[in-house]
């Protein structure tokens, strides 16, 4: 018997719904049906809204993984010039090195729970991605300023969402890594995955630097920012940086220009993420809420991101630039090049220890 079995036994003796409960539910459905018939006469969509973009939602199958969005040729032929220019400006040329830096203020996990209203700030975090067919990445992530509650991330200290190949690896490795770093920034790197390439046997190896000079390896997915769920919301991606969702939304035609505004004395253009249109197949339960709390501010001239708000979490972009593919710049995206003499330690163990155990 494990902990999951115990949970299954907890409150196992709840009573079946009473006849009154069944009746109450039937009455609620009948009321919805009556409202439906009143609000949507003549075969219109739900609540009388036309299903004008159903085909768009169906064709925009899948949220591209960060890499795919990064390197994709965006099909925005029907989009206004502004969005096309923004999409182009956010798509790095192959052979360049994308450098991003940002600070994040994350929303509380439970906005309805007054005891869980603490937002947390983190950063500045940095990311370098070598644009190419199988790009390398390297990121520097600052530890959180506090660790109350049960925050996600490595050892509860670093805002990095990770998925490991085994549960035993996760609990043990994550904690040992956080302890070994002693509050220093997390430096992590590896190779980006491509869409669909993250099955159980294909989770890539990532390396994390541990002073004085070790690179701890583990097979894990890494996500640096919570991506906005798209119509499919099923993609397991690697290194989803905060800007990746804006790229993806622009590439899929899921964004629109919302005008010029001022952000702390600075003129910026606002881009709003579009929720799935009424009638669009989606299994998101509350897309209106999610998307109404998600938008981006970009520079009017360069279209480079200034601030991105995803489902209530704020990412202030401090740097967004494309570096030429010089040897020095390529090495910025290569964690092994940054630590050429480091010992590779599988899951933080000495190679001999790891092979024996």
């Amino acid at each position, binding site marked *: 018997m494990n902990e999951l079995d*115990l949970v*299954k036994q907890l409150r196992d*003796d709840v009573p079946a*719904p009473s006849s009154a409960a069944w009746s109450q539910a039937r009455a609620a459905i009948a009321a919805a049906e009556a409202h439906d018939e009143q609000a949507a006469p003549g075969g219109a969509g739900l609540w009388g809204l036309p299903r004008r973009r159903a085909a768009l939602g169906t064709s925009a199958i899948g949220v591209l993984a960060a890499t795919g969005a990064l390197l994709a040729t965006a099909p925005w032929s029907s989009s206004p010039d502004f969005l096309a220019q923004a999409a182009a400006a956010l798509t790095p040329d192959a052979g360049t090195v994308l450098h991003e830096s940002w600070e994040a203020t994350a929303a509380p996990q439970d906005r309805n729970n007054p005891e869980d209203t603490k937002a947390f700030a983190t950063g500045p975090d940095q990311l370098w991605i070598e644009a190419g067919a199988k790009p390398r990445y390297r990121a520097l992530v600052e530890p959180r300023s506090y660790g109350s509650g049960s925050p996600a991330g490595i050892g509860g200290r670093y805002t990095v969402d990770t998925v490991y190949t085994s549960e*035993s690896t996760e609990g043990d490795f994550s904690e040992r890594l956080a302890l070994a770093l002693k509050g220093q920034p997390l430096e992590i790197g590896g190779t980006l995955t491509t869409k669909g390439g993250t099955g159980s046997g294909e989770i890539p190896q990532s390396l994390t630097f541990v002073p004085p000079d070790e690179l701890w390896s583990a097979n894990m997915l890494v996500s640096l920012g919570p991506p906005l769920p798209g119509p499919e919301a*099923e993609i*397991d991606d690697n290194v989803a940086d905060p800007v990746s969702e804006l790229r993806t939304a622009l590439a899929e035609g899921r964004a629109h220009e919302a005008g010029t505004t001022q952000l702390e004395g600075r003129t910026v253009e606002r881009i709003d993420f579009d929720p799935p249109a009424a009638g669009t197949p989606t*299994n*998101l339960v509350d897309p209106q809420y999610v998307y109404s709390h998600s938008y981006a501010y970009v520079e009017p001239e360069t279209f480079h991101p200034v601030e991105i708000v995803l489902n209530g979490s704020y990412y202030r972009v401090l740097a967004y630039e494309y570096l030429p593919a010089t040897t020095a710049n390529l090495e910025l995206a290569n964690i092994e090049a940054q630590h050429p003499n480091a010992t590779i330690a599988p899951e933080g163990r000495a190679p001999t220890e790891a092979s024996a155990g």
Partner: protein
Amino acid sequence: MRYTRRAATRSANETDPGARGTGRDAESVAGSIVESQAFEAAFEANFQVIHRFLARRVGAELADDLAAETFAVAYRRRATFDSQRGEVRPWLFGIATVLLQAHRRRERQIFALEARLAREPPDAALGADAERSAFATSLAPRLADALAEMSAGRRDVLLLHAWGELSCEEIAVALGLRAATVRARLSRARAHLRKQLDDLDPALPRLSDKESQRLLEECKT
């Protein structure tokens, strides 16, 4: 909060709560875009399961309201359900979970209260089943305490998996999350529980690496 077992008088149109939603349920909802009466089959097949899940989380009384609202919302949004992306039951669980968000404070209070309640000792004459039951019952307050401390996101995933019997992929669809995020939350939730229970009962078996891998694979399929 104390729950009492009582004999359930099943109405003629109630279905086996343990049975999984079927493709037929999905067809029923998809078909209800044109023919509203077809929604009835999906309702009959899933109401008891959804109600039971809600009752375990916030109590039977509030579950009556939330289960009714779940199906009313499902009816209003039935045009957005896509049977190609999964069965109707995970979709309904997703709606129910969103509705629960407004009652998380109550849920935490219930867990916290349950954590303080002493349970009746089991009847030793019942043998091995009693021992198993006693094991869970004696740990129940500690489990409730651990669930009360858990973040809402992890608790949702854990209970959809344990009580809703959904796979990680189904939970991802239900909550609009990445499957990777669901796996991470589930894994952390279980690790949190193991940590909370370890000091109470050192004999609680820990999962071997092989067992962990098997469970993870089960979760993925």
